[in-house]
């Protein structure tokens, strides 16, 4: 882990409000898939907190870190206007990340909206797995990176809320139709928080581990300030864990929804 400067190499619009940014650092680190980077917003003294983004790709040799983000507020709006050569401060790699072992041969990735970005990092970390991927988007216009996911997946299923591309409906609908055929050893998931409750309910009928990457308003990003907590249930007792340090990846079973 380090706090270091990054230079913007590339900052391009993928579609709508979604951008891809490649950053370069002279202090590259090893990153586990699902970990994140907390970055400052340059030239905005009014925005004092760093912003957390999943590391979508990283290359220690090339000293690069790639993130994708959606413009949702002042911070991401300012980020989207950065040009190549501009410098920002970043802390990385943070959080626990997705962990797979030898028993996980068939992996099902479930990604909703901008939640697809952390999942992309899994392919490179664990290249020898058989991946089935289900990605959900609002509509055809908001579909991004489908080609990239297709390249690494044995099978890619797309669904959209309005049916304008792929199957109509939510990821959980697609999961219900396909899980018995895919027979995954593990499911890795990231998406809007409202999908986790139906997912948890449905998966309670299966003995398949499901790991989700959570999001919460964050500050330090290293586990000290305790502002980004989420409720978990352990041994029948509910308490808080830090999304930034104990997560962002949690076993869906223990997440209190």
């Amino acid at each position, binding site marked *: *882990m380090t706090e270091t400067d990054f230079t913007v190499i590339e900052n391009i619009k993928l579609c709508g409000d979604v951008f891809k940014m490649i950053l370069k650092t002279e202090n590259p680190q090893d990153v586990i898939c699902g970990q994140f980077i907390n970055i400052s917003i340059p030239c905005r003294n009014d925005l*004092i907190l760093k912003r957390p983004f999943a590391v979508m790709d990283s290359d220690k040799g090339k000293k690069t870190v790639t993130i994708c983000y959606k413009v949702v507020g002042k911070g991401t709006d300012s980020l989207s206007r950065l040009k190549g050569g501009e410098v920002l*401060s970043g802390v990385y790699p943070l959080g626990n990340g997705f962990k797979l072992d030898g028993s996980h041969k068939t992996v099902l990735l479930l990604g909703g909206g901008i939640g697809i970005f952390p999942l992309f990092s899994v392919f490179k970390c664990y290249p020898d797995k058989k991946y089935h991927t289900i990605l959900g988007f609002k509509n055809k216009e908001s579909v991004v990176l489908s080609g990239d996911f297709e390249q690494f997946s044995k099978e890619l299923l797309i669904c959209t809320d309005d049916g304008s591309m792929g199957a109509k409906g939510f990821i959980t609908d697609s999961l219900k139709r396909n899980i018995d055929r895919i027979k995954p050893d593990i499911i890795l998931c990231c998406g809007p928080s409202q999908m986790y409750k139906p997912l948890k309910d449905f998966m309670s009928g299966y003995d398949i581990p499901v790991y989700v990457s959570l999001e919460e*308003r964050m500050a*330090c990003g*290293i586990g000290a300030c305790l502002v980004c907590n989420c409720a978990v249930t352990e041994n029948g007792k509910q308490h*808080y864990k830090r999304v930034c340090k104990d997560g962002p990846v949690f076993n869906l079973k223990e997440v209190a929804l």
Partner: protein
Amino acid sequence: MADLKVKLCGVTFKNPIIAASGTFGFGREYAEFYNISELGGISTKGLTLKRREGNPPPRIAETTSGIINSVGLQNPGVDAFIENDLNWLKQHNTVIIANIAGDTEEDYCKMAEKVSAAGVDMIELNISCPNVKKGGLAFGSDAVSIKSITAAVKQSISGGIPLIVKLSPNVTSISAAAEAAQAGGADCISLINTIGAMAVDIKSKRPVLANVFGGLSGPCVKPVALKMVYECSRAVTIPIIGIGGITCAQDVIEFMLCGATAVQVGTANLSSICASKKIIDDLNAYCDDNKIKITDIIGGLIV
């Protein structure tokens, strides 16, 4: 290397930079980034007699040049701190300040007994946390209760460990609060704690924080804090630790000119993990460049 040493109530700090309570945990997370022995001191995460889970999320809202938090004193409890964290902290060459918060006067006294027996360098009385219903602020909002809680806790401390009383800015008169702490036997005061605040989400028409109210901190509170530190420095003779929106060496110098002997850096640690370390480096350069020692600055404001 300039002389950055300051002395507070007989305790020597290698420099005037103290990590503020609630932004630094017990130091472990920051120790993964830099040597926390470089700090003048560390004020621990606010401790309570029993473990506290804190408030539900969201616990933070960013506002213009500031943040509003409502963590609600989540901590493992004073016994767990002593058992699991204090010895680790003691391995570092920095002043350890136990920040304690209670629901009742009895809680405060019990904790003061425990942490003084366990051996901390100083105790900071948190009577100004705006994020818990009972205790905290209830003790810090009027002069009579500030004096009586300070006196009671002072009696519970063994070994002559100095007592710092952390003052709330959410009062009518900060100098009256400072005088009350001094009258109760405080060895030092620290101020300001966060300012009561809230944030609203116009899309959901709901407060951003689950707790509705929180405490404002960060650069936006610095002018308020400077004024209050200056007012207190004229009202009391005990030393003052200045707190409020410090992000750089210049801010530290401003607080020291206004009468602070040392300062606490809080929110800046969240903006930049290595902020406190950089402030110390910059203070060192400032004193070298000006050929002064840090204590030359204290109370030097020309009015």
